[in-house]
């Protein structure tokens, strides 16, 4: 059995279990819709502020929500792995000759598919609120968000394998989440920030991803902003998968 076939097997198993108990999938989609309904209208006024990027407020806001979904939807998948570790499922699979890449990759693939479904629903919802953006930009934006999700899901699994408990994982995520969120310009674009804050946020790779997805929603495809976003996200995926595969192959769990 090839690694691809094993990945597919693990994906189907993970998907089957997710759909059997879809509470988390539903929570994952309800949250961005709440942002859309309860925070989006505020931005319509802010959009006239000097420094606010071009395009409608929805073209700025929806990409931010998509990236937020990609990060936070995926960052919490480690909790599911902790439960699997506790049940002994991870260890049982590690005793088989199956490829470690497949044991990880199948789960990440499930997370990406869930994320894409949530993202598509979010864009459709936003369309009802008044978003207008070119289809190609939306599809490419979703692709970037899917890659981002794969990176964060991998990192979350690696952290879960290392830490082994929900408590430790929760403190790690809480520590990282707020600075990442504030410095990424997800909620308000960093072009509104004073100089020093914008400089600090430049260090955060996620800011470039948000900027790139915004550019895609504005109809840019071959711009430097988009290029940076793609390079960043591909780098993050590579790093995340490498870290997680190594951790899966090691002796934790």
């Amino acid at each position: 059995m090839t690694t691809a076939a094993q990945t597919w097997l693990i994906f189907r198993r993970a998907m089957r279990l997710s759909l059997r108990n879809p509470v988390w999938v539903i929570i994952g989609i309800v949250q961005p819709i709440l942002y859309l309904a309860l925070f989006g209208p505020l931005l319509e006024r802010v959009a006239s502020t000097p420094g606010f990027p071009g395009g409608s407020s929805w073209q700025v806001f929806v990409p931010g929500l998509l990236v937020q979904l990609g990060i936070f939807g995926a960052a919490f998948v480690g909790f599911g792995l902790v439960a699997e570790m506790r049940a002994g499922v991870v260890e049982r699979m590690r005793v088989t000759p199956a490829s470690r890449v497949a044991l990880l990759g199948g789960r990440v693939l499930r997370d990406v598919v869930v994320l894409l479904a949530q993202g598509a629903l979010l864009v459709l919802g936003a369309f009802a609120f008044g978003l207008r953006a070119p289809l190609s930009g939306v599809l490419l934006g979703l692709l970037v968000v899917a890659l981002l999700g794969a990176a964060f899901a991998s990192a979350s699994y690696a952290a879960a394998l290392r830490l082994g408990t929900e408590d430790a994982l929760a403190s790690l995520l809480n520590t990282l989440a707020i600075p990442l969120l504030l410095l990424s310009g997800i909620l308000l674009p960093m072009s509104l920030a004073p100089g020093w804050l914008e400089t600090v946020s430049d260090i955060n790779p996620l800011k470039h991803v948000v900027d790139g997805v915004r550019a895609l929603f504005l109809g840019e495809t071959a711009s430097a902003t988009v290029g940076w976003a793609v390079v960043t996200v591909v780098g993050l995926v590579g790093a995340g998968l490498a870290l997680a595969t190594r951790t899966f192959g090691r002796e934790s769990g």
Partner: protein
Amino acid sequence: MIEARGLARSFKTREGIVEAVRGVDIDVSPGEIVGFLGPNGAGKTTTQRMLTTLLAPSAGSARVAGHDLAREAVEVRRRIGYVAQRGGTEPEARVGEELVDHGRLYGLTRADAAARGAALLGRLDLHGSWARLVKTLSGGQRRRLDIALGLINEPPLLFLDEPTSGLDPQARANLWAHIRSLRAEHGVTIFLTTHYLEEADALCDRILVIDEGLIAARGAPEELKRGLAGDVVALTVRDADDAARAALVLEARSAASAPEVEGVIVRFHLPSAAAGLPEAFWALEEADIAPVGVEVHRPTLDDVFLSLTGRALREQPVAA
């Protein structure tokens, strides 16, 4: 089937380096059932996790199921089954799904995995559970499903970690029968860990006793028990005078050995209390001593440990 030399493993903790296993040699021949006996924290699970490729040894080498543990881990994995102490089933999955998916990870086709899974459920008295959710199974059923999963690749060598811990006596006896039939009917070699003496006694051809990461003794259960002084009897008499006289009488006129007096209680060893107590009572009656109470204490793992190591069995793990 297993040939391990100097296998050792240490862990880094905040308190420093803990040597969980300090160099053990293990030999298991095909068709044997070998028990790895020791208190919690003695290094049983760590050793088993090394032999099943889950943990890299910090020293030593081993051949498991004909392949080198370090260099041919995948070949070893193909040929072994491992049933961890906490099991390995997803509560929300269905029994059949777990069996098929697990079989496919070994490269079986869907049809083959399903056929083997169904046959294993039959063998392990889990008929009719194919479509059930794992979480609806009883503890004993779930344990047998764990074993079925461990057998899906038809391994010649099966590792069981504390197979009956947490089971009620009936489920335990039932599982013992299943484990015996694996060897009797399918020739599976079994290496199991346990901290129950009676389990090692009931199942194993040979026992390795491990304590503080070292093998303290090895041999057939009978051999190990022969090393013990038999049953311990505590006899209560009316007063301290009677107790002192009883000790003399018992030593002189019965099979009792090493009587000790403590107040109105006389403690002594008998090779077998069932056979030796009537004779001891006759001797006491002739000396006009009337026992008012008797307690018989059969040899336990504590006693094996006490006699092997001079220390009482610690139930607390070394590495907390």
